[in-house]
């Protein structure tokens, strides 16, 4: 399954790259991208664990940039 989420207050391009890498490392993630310019998070992951994976991804984002919010 592939889903796209909006990200708010993502202020630094470098962080977006770090988030992308962090999310890709989560078990079950096939592909992921945090796009700084479109302010969007794209996750492609296993269907059965998807919700859990997204939660983990949000955690990764918040650990890198505490102010940013993923709109689920």
């Amino acid at each position, binding site marked *: 399954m592939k889903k796209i989420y909006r990200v708010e*207050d993502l*202020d*630094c*391009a*470098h*962080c977006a*790259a770090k988030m992308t890498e962090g999310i890709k490392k989560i078990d079950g993630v096939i592909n992921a*991208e945090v*796009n*700084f*310019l*479109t*302010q*969007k998070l*794209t996750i492609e992951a296993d269907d059965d664990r998807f919700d859990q994976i997204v939660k983990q991804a949000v955690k990764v984002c918040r*650990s*890198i940039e*505490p*102010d940013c919010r993923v709109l689920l």
Partner: protein
Amino acid sequence: MTRKQKKRLIKICAATVLLIAVSCLPIQNPVLRFALYLLPYLTVGFDVLWTAVRHILHGQLFDEQFLMSVATLGAFALGENREAVAVMLLYQVGELFQSIAVGKSRRNIAALMEIRPESAVVLREGAEMTVSPEEVAVGETVLIRPGEKIPLDGVIIAGNTAIDAAALTGESLPLEKQPGDRVISGSVNLTGLIEVKTESIYADSMVAKILDLVENASSKKAKTETFITRFAKYYTPCVVGAALLLAVIPPLFVGGFAGWLRRALIFLVVSCPCALVISVPLSFFGGIGGASKKGILIKGSRQLEQLAAADTFVFDKTGTLTKGNFVVTEVLPVGMSEEELLCLAAMAESHSAHPIARSVTRAYPEPFDRERIRGMTEHPGQGIEAVIDGRRVFAGNARLMREIGITPAEPSVAGTAIYLARDGQYCGCLVITDEIKEDAPAAIAALQKLGIRKTVMLTGDRREIAQYVGDALQITQIRAELFPADKVNAIEELIAGGAKPAFTGDGINDAPVLARADVSIAMGALGSDAAIEAADVVLMDDKLSGVPAAVKIARKTMRIARQNVVFALSVKAAVLLLATLGFANMWIAIFADVGVAVLAILNAMRTMR
């Protein structure tokens, strides 16, 4: 300006006022003075310090906030109170600029793509209902008023209007549409109320495809972009490491700890790679967005990079360089007027459906009495024999003429010749050629002006015709009489010869060739899904001038991206060098960090134009 930006601006102003006030106070006590300088410092920098602390708690070292905190606190430790506040202040000013610039370019790009229809008025059981385009099914009737966007692809069933497809094709001339004509979603209905029967759901409609393509373009990274990402990963830790060494090692030998610490702090300020990390993808994003405004869809940064690097442009002939319709270009009568010869040919060919015969009848639009034509016979592969006004007329190729004992002189112009003979007497010939597109010569010339020295034409057509078209367009290499598989081989030969070919075709029947070339361009894609799928670059209309235009945009984007890389890296390298030698101060460092980032962003925004 967003709420966050406004808040930042207020803090900056407050801190500036406080800084000036504190600087003017004649206080000698160092502790009191430090305490007073803390006021503007914390006003403007508290967020930064707090974020840095939180990042450390999350295990994120070496980010911008952390580096800025260390640098400014270090300056305080050295007793440079004013510098410490100023560095933090300027850092925030830079961040604000950066945020405004990025926000602005993001909005500009969003505006470029303002083709998304917000709603559709659908007729259900005789009543008008306003729904979102996603909720409209195939075969429903939607009502579109003048000034509204067409929400879904479909066919007009009632009403006449003019359509503005400028947002899709960049072509600003309105197109007249009447019942039975197809309309494409994303274009704007200009003059009349129309009813459209939908042919696809929203997700499959042209507008959704285009938006999807442009929005996903930035995920196909160019080499330059991956280089920057990789570079950024190593740059910061390296510079921070160097700063640490600079603060510790030299003082052991030459002493003067404070001076070396100051140099190390400068290192920290310039250690953020943000100028690069923002401006390079922004350049590509802007370039792709700007191109889409002109009806040129580039599938990704990687494709843009390849288009900029392409040195050989390969074209399919029919439908790309030529219109694919056949037109009578020469009338060469013998012993009669041009008019008479045309009329004779048109009458002889009037019952045939062959494309060449059709082009002859089109060339003579005058009505004639069909009763005059009797006993028409077709000679397959040769031509036609007919009895006109009681006289036996032959119209066909040279073989047919030889069959009846005539050896016609071959016309000197290229094309397909149709010879005519009446009662055994040769009457002359017509030359039919595939019409070259009006803008093709200008487009090829423009490519040559861009420094493309090699242009190649591939065609399944006869050599003479290919030569004629090639000469007219000044194409450097002509490959004629090719089967589809030969076209792929031709591309492979070019690649083997070290060329970087870009192939332009109309997207019909040339999918294998599109796939093989380094970068492929499909023309006339508005309404053709196959072309959009197959090609790297999609020209929405069938104007060949889109090819040099796309190359220009690609090259400009690459140039700007490279400028940003070189500019940011060289300024940072220079400041690092000056700092090591002790010639740089905090002010220069702050310019190398946020100043360079802002300039690079402003430069990147040029790609959109």
